[in-house]
Each structure stands twice: as structure tokens, then as C-alpha cells.
């Protein structure tokens, strides 16, 4: 019961938080601008030349989408709610909270809300962009239906991570990519939350650490190991050759384990000055 009550309280404070509104606005603007640019690009274009809505989606092959996946994706979810524990520690608010509920329950409830907030803040704007694409593009472009596949294009489908799904259910394919991006957003927020337990650092470090790790790892992997080891390559619907789905999910699972280990060791099981 206490866990449910805490979840409700945390969700309430998440929705009221200024950072949530700012980040959601930035995300929505970032998703609406490419849509408006597509509107201008395809205005008065013959319907047969307009690509299907699934390929017009920002996560498929779009420069603004690529910039979003490369840099903003790990930063924005971490800003939404993940730094609240750090602020509670810094301001001393945690004493008021821990004296009213069990510390472990509070930490876990906050972790769940942070995880979900990271997912929603990425998933919903991507979904909105896909829905907007339906307004200006056909579900299945007649240009590309000659091959008998609903989503068939001249696009080299062999580079796609889920090629079969793309060919049979293109919108489910995009939905899966939105969920994968949302998953990365969740992990980014959780990592930021875990960093706040390490103590002694500034708010900037708490918020920006996931982004710096993600960006530097992508940079290193792209230059030294190959694109298939960069996490961003798994987020574009456009695809890169030789991708391994297990690698992406392994990285996510590893991140989850590391975050949980930090949260449990430094948060749940650690005795504080209120513990007696």
C-alpha cells in the first residue's frame, strides 16, 4: 500500500515539475519541426511521389531525427525527474521523507517513476510524429507497392534490423523502434538516478553523465570497432548492415544491472544518519 501511495505521490510531483514540461516541449517541438519541413517539401507533390508514412517518420531517415538520437536522446530523459533524489539529498529534504516512509520503498518507488518517465518522454513525441505523418502521407505508397509488399521500397532492406517485420508490418516495425528508443531513454534516466547515489558531485554531473557515456561510447565504437557496436545505429529505422539485436539488448540489460547494483548498494542497503 505504501509503495502504491508513494508511486502516486511521485507521479503527481513529476507531472507538476517544470523540467518535465520544458523537456516535453523541447521534444514535441523537435518532432513537429521535421513534420512541418516535410509538409513544405511535399506540398503540391503528386501523391504517387510521396513516400509512405512509415518512411516519413522522424526515426526512419531524417537528419533532425539522427541528431536527436545521437545527442539529445540520453540527455532529455535524465533532466525530467532523475535528479530529484540528488536535490533531496542536497537540500536535506530526504530527512522529512525517510521519517515518514520506509527508505527502501521510497527509493524503489522513485526509481520506477524515473524509469517510466524516461520511457514516456521519448516514446510519446516519436509516436506523435508518426501520427502527424499520417496527415500528409499515404499509409502505403502506390509508388512502392509494385513488389506486392506493403512497405516495399527501393530502400536496401537487407540493412534493416528487423527486415521481415519491416516488409510485413511497417508500422509495427516503427513502433518497435519507438519502444527501443524509449528503452534507451529509460536506461538513461535510471543511470542518472543511480549516479545521484554516488554523492559529492554537482547536478550537472548527475544529469549529463548518461549523455557523456553514450556519446563517447558511440564515438569510440564508430571509429575503432565499427558502426554495429554504436548504440545509435540500433535506433534509426533506416538501418546499418551487420547489426546484432542481442548486442543492443545486452547493453540495456548491463546498464540496468549496473544501475540496480548502485541503487541497492549505495541507497537501499546503506545506513544513513536516520537509521537506528
Amino acid at each position, binding site marked *: 500500500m505504501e509503495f502504491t501511495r508513494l508511486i502516486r505521490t511521485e507521479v503527481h510531483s513529476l507531472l507538476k515539475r517544470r523540467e518535465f514540461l520544458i523537456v516535453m516541449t523541447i521534444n514535441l517541438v523537435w518532432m513537429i519541426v521535421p513534420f512541418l*519541413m516535410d509538409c513544405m517539401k511535399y506540398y503540391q507533390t503528386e501523391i504517387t511521389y510521396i513516400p509512405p508514412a512509415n518512411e516519413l517518420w522522424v526515426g526512419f531517415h531524417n*537528419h533532425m531525427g539522427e541528431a536527436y538520437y545521437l545527442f539529445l536522446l540520453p540527455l532529455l530523459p535524465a533532466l525530467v525527474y532523475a535528479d530529484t533524489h540528488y536535490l533531496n539529498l542536497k537540500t536535506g529534504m530526504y530527512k522529512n521523507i525517510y521519517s515518514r516512509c520506509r527508505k527502501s520503498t521510497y527509493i524503489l518507488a522513485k526509481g520506477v517513476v524515473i524509469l517510466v518517465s524516461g520511457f514516456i518522454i521519448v516514446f510519446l513525441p516519436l509516436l506523435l510524429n508518426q501520427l502527424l505523418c499520417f496527415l500528409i502521407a499515404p499509409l502505403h505508397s502506390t509508388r512502392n507497392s509494385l513488389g506486392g509488399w506493403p512497405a516495399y521500397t527501393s530502400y536496401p532492406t537487407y540493412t534493416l534490423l528487423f527486415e521481415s517485420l519491416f516488409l510485413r508490418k511497417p508500422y509495427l516495425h516503427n513502433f518497435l523502434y519507438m519502444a527501443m528508443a524509449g528503452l534507451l531513454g529509460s536506461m538513461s534516466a535510471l543511470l542518472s538516478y543511480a549516479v545521484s547515489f554516488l554523492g559529492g558531485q554537482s*547536478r*550537472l554531473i548527475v*544529469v549529463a553523465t548518461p*549523455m557523456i557515456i553514450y556519446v563517447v561510447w558511440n564515438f569510440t565504437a*564508430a571509429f*575503432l570497432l565499427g558502426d554495429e557496436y554504436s548504440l545509435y545505429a540500433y535506433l534509426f529505422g533506416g538501418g546499418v548492415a551487420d547489426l546484432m539485436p542481442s548486442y543492443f539488448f545486452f547493453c540495456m540489460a548491463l546498464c540496468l544491472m549496473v544501475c540496480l547494483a548502485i541503487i541497492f548498494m549505495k541507497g537501499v542497503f546503506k545506513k544513513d544518519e536516520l537509521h537506528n
Partner: protein
Amino acid sequence: MRIHRIHKTYFFKLLIGIFLAFVVGGSVIPFVSEKPYYEYLFLISYGGIRLPVEDGWAYINLLLDSLVSQILLIFLLANYMSDDFSTCSVYIFTRSNRKGAWFLHKCTDLFFLVALYYILQFAVLIVVGRVLGRLTISDPAAFWHIILSELALLAMFSFCYVLTVNVLSLKMGTHYAYLFTVLLAVVFSVLPMLFQNSTAVKFLPFSQSMLVWHDSKKLALYRDFVGSCIPHFTILFSLLYLIVLIGILLLIGIHLVNNIEIMGSERKD
């Protein structure tokens, strides 16, 4: 004198950038195996990407190649002014009312740190080139032209971001300032793709840091390797552009610092 004034932790922080130089150097060496000269190594590592930027993956490489280093630098130096201001502004400004002078001192320190960040990376690249690729200098005049131009353009352009994040952090807190500056950097990097077939590209801030896009006689020998340039887009134009940009940021910063309330500026983060 200036070195003593800067906190040692910032020097150590800048050493992280060396790692990026190792990665870039290690990955680029195979591409210069046919022409084993430092000029090619520096042009491909820090000179920017080939024009026209049409291929999607070339664009992603552009983002990785240029933005990662800048975003890391912004992160490392984002706290530089706000740390000082939030911890001891009351002591400083109750003894002296010259807030503008304090701000300019901080700016010179920051420029020194930004330049040092790239100098360290260039030094590492020279060592990597020598050890891994046995590289030599083919034309000393062209070599120094490339090195100094790249250093000046990158340092001044990155300084604009660092100055922005520091000025904003005094007003809105470091985390918002960092978000805003990263957004600015990403938007600036997207713009060349949107204006790629237009001469307006040379007026975009991001283009100023791309040495290979500049129209320079010294780079004519390397055009087959680094791609074409934007006509009449000179290095002098970029330097003047960046000086004006930095001047505007300094004026905004001085105005902001002069009007900031020091009593309410204790650390919010």
C-alpha cells in the same frame, strides 16, 4: 600568472580530451597510409568532412567527428564561472564593484583552457601519427598553416559554446545552461544539411569550424583528398565572424554580470 589562477582540476579534466584524440588518430591512420604526411592526418581528423554533405552517414560522421569533442568540452567547463560566483561572489563583489573585470578575467582563463584542450589533442595526434603511421611533414608551410588555422577556428568556435554555457549558467543554473547549449550545438550542426546547396552555408556558425570548406590556396594541393570548398569562403572571413560573435557574447555576459543579484546567487545545484 594565469596558470596559477586556474584551479588545477580543470587541467586534469581537459586531459579527458586526449582520449578522443587517440581514438581519432587510431582510426584515421589507415586512411593516410598511401600519403603518410601529417597534413593529411590533421585535415581528415580535425578539418571537417568532405563537401557536398549529401550522404547520410557522412553527416553522422560529421556529428560524431566535430560535435562529440565540443560537447565534452562544454560539459567539462560548464561550471567554471558559476562555481566561483556561487561560492565567493559575495566576498569578491563587496570588496570590488568591478564585476565586468572579473568576468573578462574568467573569459581569458576559459579561452586559455579551450585552446589548451585542442593543443593537447593536436600533440597526441602528432605522437599517434609518428608511432602508428610513421608520418612526416611534406610541406612545412602548409603544415603550419593547417595546424594554426584548425587550432584558431576550433578554439574560437568552441569558446563561443563554452562562453554561452557559462554566461547562461549564471542566470538559469548549470543544468539548464548545458541543455540550452547542447540544443544550440545540435541545431547549428543540422543547419548545414538543410542549406547544403546554398551559399548561405558560409554564414552558418557551424561552417566556421570546418577548415576544409574554406577557400584557401594552401589547401589546393589537398583538394582531391578533402573535397571541394565553398567559393570565397576564406579563413579570414571565419576569424572575423568568430571575433564578432565572441564580442557579442562578451557584451551580453558583461551586461548580465553587471545586473546580476549577488546575494541570491548561492548554489542552486
